[in-house]
């Protein structure tokens, strides 16, 4: 019995630590801005949606969220298409050196993004793609490829070998086999990889910071970072923007946590 | 060193599932007692309760008359051999054997002496430096035994320790276990689903089903005089025949007859039941003969020494001595006199 109380207390502390800062953001976003400016650390006396209103009307936040959504969805789609094909080839087709390719993908994923941002910036400038959403979609898809391929490779490898053989016997070309027979059981893996890619694209900061300059293509993380004014920091608006920025993520984590966990574990070699 | 174990009214619930229901058991000190029954009958749970690895929902456990509540397995001075052996994979055989003694904070010289003595007894000497994954199944099993023995506990609790071994090894280890029991003299409580194992090893067996002990006694006695249809069919191979009232001669009862007690006679006799042989299984020293008699399938065992039994398709008379028939209540399955 005493043990259960100890565990319960420990769990409560952990949850408080994990969710506390976010809950505080939420509370702050719901307070009237004047109150926030006056005493940011007090408990709310009144509730108001003024901060949210300010975020959307005084800044082009709708546009920014739209940019983020566009970039995240497109890059996820592209990444998953390429990763599924690549994982299928590495796991199920007689490609020479498939283990080397996987090792290469893994090592490449360890490179610091700052190492690639320079040339990508120069190339984007040269191509006139600076400050466009397109400039972000391709790098994001490419950066998420190794992890997505690794996850899907695991799923393809775990399929019974006879499934593919049966499809061959029934007259399928490799791509037909992939589409009709192998893809459906691998769907959870695709979901897991898609979630991770989406979260990565939504949250990515360095490339977005470097490749965008106006609200034409700016994404949510960069926008939030730029909120700080010269003289004062509008904490209420930052909080409101953060709440909006994290809403899709929260929904994903709440509804699809099982896929998320599977993806994370597979991506680190434990799945 | 040994101990008597008494269980009083042990009930164990997991949520809404009842694993053990008011189990009473008295285990004699120094005996080899086997808990035997089909999967899910609760025997492993009962062993865990004795060990202190599970707390009963109600009921009490006594060691030599002392109540055991609140005491962990180490305090109860029992050793446990797991079906999976549960050897510490990161420790060598020596360190696996030494582990319980280290926990008891024995002096190093004593630990060394006892580990080597136990290793010697179980022929593990040359393996002391190896890790478990470099051992064969049989060797791992001996290390698991050794880890229990090195503590010199008052009681050994063994949870299906032989189930993961192949047939020949299992037979060899069975003999080993029996010999060890004689040598050590501690109380052994053994769990298995294999009734042959139970019969050959034990001083007393407790047949379990559905969370209850149906019968407890010496193996031969349980075999000869089952208290329950289930016990009769579970113990003994091939299983006891269970025949309807016309064989038992009493309404509301069924007759239990061991295949060994069914004799085959030429057809046409008046003092038996007529039937047709459907299948003959030659097993070497004996034959198992399946006979259809009025829609009932009856199994008889004949010795090879008596010559070949009638072929399939032949008519026979089944003769059963009155003294070989055990009567059981049709509904409850309990023995009626």
């Amino acid at each position, binding site marked *: 019995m005493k043990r259960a109380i100890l*565990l319960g207390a420990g769990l409560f502390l*952990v*949850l408080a630590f*994990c*969710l506390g800062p*976010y809950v505080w953001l939420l509370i702050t976003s719901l307070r009237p801005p004047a109150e926030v400016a006056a*005493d940011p*650390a007090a408990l709310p006396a009144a509730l108001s949606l003024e901060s949210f209103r300010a975020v959307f009307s005084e800044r082009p936040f709708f546009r920014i969220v739209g940019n983020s959504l566009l970039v995240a969805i497109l890059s996820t789609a592209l990444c998953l298409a390429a*990763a599924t*094909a*690549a994982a299928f*080839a*590495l796991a199920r*087709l007689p490609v020479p050196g498939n283990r080397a390719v996987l090792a290469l993908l893994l090592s*490449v994923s360890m490179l*610091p*993004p*700052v*190492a*690639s941002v*320079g*040339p*990508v910036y*120069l190339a984007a400038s040269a191509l006139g793609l600076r400050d466009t959403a397109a400039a972000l979609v*391709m790098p994001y898809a*490419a*950066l998420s*490829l*190794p992890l997505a*391929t690794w996850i899907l490779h695991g799923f393809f490898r775990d399929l019974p070998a006879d499934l593919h053989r049966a499809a061959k016997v029934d007259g399928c*070309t490799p*791509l037909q086999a992939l589409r009709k027979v192998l893809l459906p059981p691998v769907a959870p893996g695709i979901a897991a990889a898609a979630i991770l890619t989406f979260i990565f694209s939504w949250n990515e900061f*360095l490339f977005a910071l470097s490749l965008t300059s106006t609200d034409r293509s700016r994404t*949510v993380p960069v926008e*939030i*970072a730029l909120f700080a004014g010269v003289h004062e920091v509008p904490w209420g608006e*930052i*909080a409101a923007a*953060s709440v909006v*920025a*994290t809403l899709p993520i*929260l929904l*994903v*984590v709440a509804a699809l*946590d099982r896929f998320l966990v599977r993806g*994370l*574990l597979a991506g*680190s070699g*434990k799945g | 060193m040994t101990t008597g174990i008494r269980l009083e009214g042990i009930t164990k619930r997991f949520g809404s599932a009842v694993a053990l229901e008011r189990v009473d058991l008295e285990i004699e000190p120094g005996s080899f007692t086997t808990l035997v029954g089909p999967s899910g009958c609760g025997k492993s749970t009962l062993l865990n309760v004795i*060990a202190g*690895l599970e707390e009963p929902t109600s009921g009490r456990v006594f060691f030599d008359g002392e109540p055991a509540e609140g005491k962990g397995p180490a305090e109860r001075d029992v050793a*446990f051999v*797991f079906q999976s052996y*549960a050897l*510490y*994979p*990161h420790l060598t055989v020596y360190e696996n054997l030494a*582990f319980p003694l280290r*926990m*008891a904070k024995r002096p190093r010289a004593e630990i060394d002496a006892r580990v080597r003595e136990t290793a010697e007894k179980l022929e593990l000497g040359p393996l002391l430096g190896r890790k478990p994954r470099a051992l064969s199944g049989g060797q791992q099993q001996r290390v698991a035994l050794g880890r229990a023995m090195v503590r010199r506990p008052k009681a050994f609790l063994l949870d299906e320790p032989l189930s993961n071994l192949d047939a020949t090894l299992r037979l060899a280890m069975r003999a080993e276990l029996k010999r060890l029991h004689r040598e050590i003299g501690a109380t052994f409580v053994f769990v298995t689903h294999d009734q042959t194992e139970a019969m050959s090893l034990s001083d007393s067996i407790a047949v379990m089903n559905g969370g209850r002990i149906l019968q407890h006694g010496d193996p031969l006695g349980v075999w000869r005089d089952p208290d329950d249809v289930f016990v009769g069919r579970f113990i003994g191979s091939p299983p006891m025949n269970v025949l309807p009232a016309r064989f038992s001669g009493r309404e509301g009862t069924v007759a239990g007859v061991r295949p060994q007690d069914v004799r085959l006679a030429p057809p046409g006799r008046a003092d038996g039941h007529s039937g047709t042989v459907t299948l003959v299984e030659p097993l070497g020293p004996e034959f198992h003969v399946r006979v259809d008699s009025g829609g009932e399938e009856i199994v008889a065992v004949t010795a090879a020494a008596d010559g070949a039994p009638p072929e399939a398709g032949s008519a026979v008379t089944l003769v059963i001595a009155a003294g070989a028939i055990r009567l059981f209540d049709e509904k409850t399955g309990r023995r009626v006199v």
Partner: protein
Amino acid sequence: MSRARFLESERRVGFLCLAPALLAVAAFSLAPLAIVLWLSLRRHMPVFGISRFVGLDNYAYLVSDPRFLSSLGNTAYVVLASVALELVLGLLVALLLDRSFSGRRIARAAVLVPWAFPTVVAASAWGFLLSPGFGVVNRVLGIDANWLGDPWLAIHAVILADVWKSTPLAALLLLAGLQVIPRDLGRAALVDGAGAAARFFRVTLPLLRPTILVVVLFRSLDAFRIFDVVYVLTGGGPANTTESVSLYAYRLYFQTLQFGTGSAVSIASCLVMAAWSAVMVGLLSTSRRGA
């Protein structure tokens, strides 16, 4: 068709399937790396039209550049402290979540929240909580620490935000590692007289070693690349005392437009990470053989 031709056609399809992924990786990871390597050997400032070969001059500069060395030191300190804290906290959380209880799935999802949020939001939130004067942390602790203005405190603020964000992943990996350990081992140890502490240190921890090494490898490489948190929380300040290697490279690229020197910093950090990985992978393979 014959078996050989069939295999060949399968192989062709295989190459086709691999092509997009390999092209993307080549274009956005390998080619940039090669270009950065090339750039690191040049003085390259496109805005001024300067681009000439200077050999290893950039690297020679870095070796005695106090700002580079301090960024290296800052980053190393953050990596050490973060990974150590994440390991300990992650282990505690994993142990808590290792038992089944109702609502465990919700707890596990809740624990993932810090990880799932944009680092920028995490940094903003902690910046808010640690603000001098009105920050909740100061209020609750009853002190008036200048978290973001004092160099010693600022780097620990960075560590705090990073630990908050990254512990969930470490916890998740450690939890997976815990769940692979057979339950019977704990019970055997209990029967052998081991108390909870002995069971943890003598049975659980040794068997968790490969997982711990994997966590340390992934997290240390990740932490070395730290950028978002520093940029948003401290901006590298006060006076570059929390500047990380990645932030320094970024500044060289986009503030002073010295692409050559920035590239040298990038290559240097890649080399450090490669060396560290080699050490960790070596440790991992010996531990796998041993346990």
